[in-house]
């Protein structure tokens, strides 16, 4: 946990902890799937910088290291063989936490301060406050947070917050040999992405898009896709924080508090109106009515 960063939002917080004292621009990763060569240098760099345990590879019939992200494996290159208009396409995408502007994990988390969003947009898990309930995995539209069986806590990509806060780029970015990864302010990365998308469109890839889903307020990972088919890259087309998560946090919670208070007030009102129901035989003798 980086104490020097301003916390913008904090999970299960009563009043919030945003002071507004330190300001910083939103940062973002830029991922160009069209120039990724699938070398997995970013995977290795992530494991190394974050001191994560080695995870046994699982062969799933492609070059992909694991079927899904893992509590000990926060950066995964997904390999997809996709037929497009009769042509074979080998699609690769770097999968990790998307660092949403409106994070579903943070909304769902019941432990105060276990998930925070820093002023610069990075969403981080504080394992010392995490209770390992897994609600964040329910709230995340990208299925990113994973349960660490050994620690009993949730774990995911931190966007190398410990590097970013001292002015370094994330480990994955530093390791990339093709320049398909880049890091900077969100504004700059979106501009870079738009330029790249225009270049792709001019070169025959008319469907090229920049994936920055607005349903979660945009993400601090912007991804250039050659085809406007996010599902081919195992990305949700229009991710949102689930309606059920919203219902339970924004509707049921206040409703429950009001209902409990109303029940208590109701009993007092009833007692004030009708008093105790005492048998006629006991009505003149207060002591026998108490019943203890």
């Amino acid at each position, binding site marked *: 946990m980086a104490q020097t960063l301003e916390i913008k939002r904090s999970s299960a917080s009563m009043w919030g902890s945003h002071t507004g004292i330190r300001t910083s621009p939103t940062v973002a990763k830029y991922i160009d799937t069209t120039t990724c060569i699938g070398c997995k240098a970013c995977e290795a760099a992530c494991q190394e910088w974050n001191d994560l345990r080695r995870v046994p590879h699982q062969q799933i019939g492609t070059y992909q290291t694991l079927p899904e992200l893992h509590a000990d494996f926060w950066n995964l290159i997904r390999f997809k063989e996709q037929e497009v208009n009769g042509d074979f396409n080998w699609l690769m995408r770097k999968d990790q936490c998307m660092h949403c502007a409106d994070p579903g994990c943070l909304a769902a988390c019941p*432990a105060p301060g276990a998930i925070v969003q820093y002023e610069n947009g990075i969403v981080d898990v504080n394992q010392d406050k995490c*209770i390992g309930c897994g609600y964040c*995995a329910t709230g995340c539209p990208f299925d990113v947070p994973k349960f660490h069986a050994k620690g009993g806590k949730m774990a995911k990509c931190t966007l190398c917050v410990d590097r970013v806060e001292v002015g370094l780029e994330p480990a994955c970015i530093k390791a990339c040999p093709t320049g398909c990864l880049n890091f900077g302010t969100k504004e700059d990365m979106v501009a870079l992405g738009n330029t790249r998308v225009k270049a792709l469109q001019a070169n025959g890839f008319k469907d090229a898009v920049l994936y920055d889903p607005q349903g979660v307020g945009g993400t601090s990972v912007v991804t250039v896709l050659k085809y406007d088919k996010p599902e081919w890259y195992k990305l949700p087309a229009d991710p949102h924080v689930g309606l059920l998560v919203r219902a339970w946090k924004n509707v049921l919670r206040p409703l429950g508090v009001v*209902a409990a208070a109303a029940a208590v007030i109701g*009993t007092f009102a009833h007692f004030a109106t009708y008093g105790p129901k005492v048998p006629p035989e*006991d009505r003149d003798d207060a002591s026998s009515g108490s019943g*203890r």
Partner: protein
Amino acid sequence: MSTTMPVEPLNPAVLAARHNEDILVGDELVRHSRVSRLLHWAVAISFFVGLFTGLPIWTPLFGWMAYLFGGLEVCRWLHPWAGVAFALFSVWMFFYWLGDMRMLPGETREWFGPKLWTYMKYEDEPDAGKYNGGQKLFFYAVSLGMLGLLLTGLVMWFPLLFPRWLRGLSIVLHDFTFICFMVGIVMHIYLGTTAEPGTFRSMTQGTVTKPWARLHHPGWLRTVTENKDRRA
């Protein structure tokens, strides 16, 4: 006054309440046998452990309750086990009490309608047996709620085994059921203590007075008295 303290002989009705219920002993009626009472309190204690460990997870407004148990992590561990105990004792109690919970013809419809309000206004209910219609309906509602809390709770306990939509739905249903429960329990405690004096002792020493029975459960008083006459 003599120098030695006179020793009150044990109330014969309370003695009888160790192993019997629905009998008349002297001026008192045995309403709940010892097993019945212990079951009720086992359900109550496991419920409140579940409530006080669940509330701080539910909302930070009740976050302070977590410190009663040693923090939120402890609550997260203890809550499901309290739930298991609550479910087990509730199932046991359900079958132990089921025999007394048969609805009379038309009673359900009555209690979902005007009867509830006349009851709240303390009007006489000459037909009320051991349990009135409202109590019986509450019994079934609580049992159903327990089942809902158990099933949704299991999904929330082991989230990795279930799809995301089911986890989200379970949390919403768990919350909704528990809110109904909380309102129900507030009324249950109110009616069992302050609102109807003489009721609480039926869950401690197990007995109630004849006037209490005549007021709240006249049908039950008749049955118990007749049985006694028949036995005598």
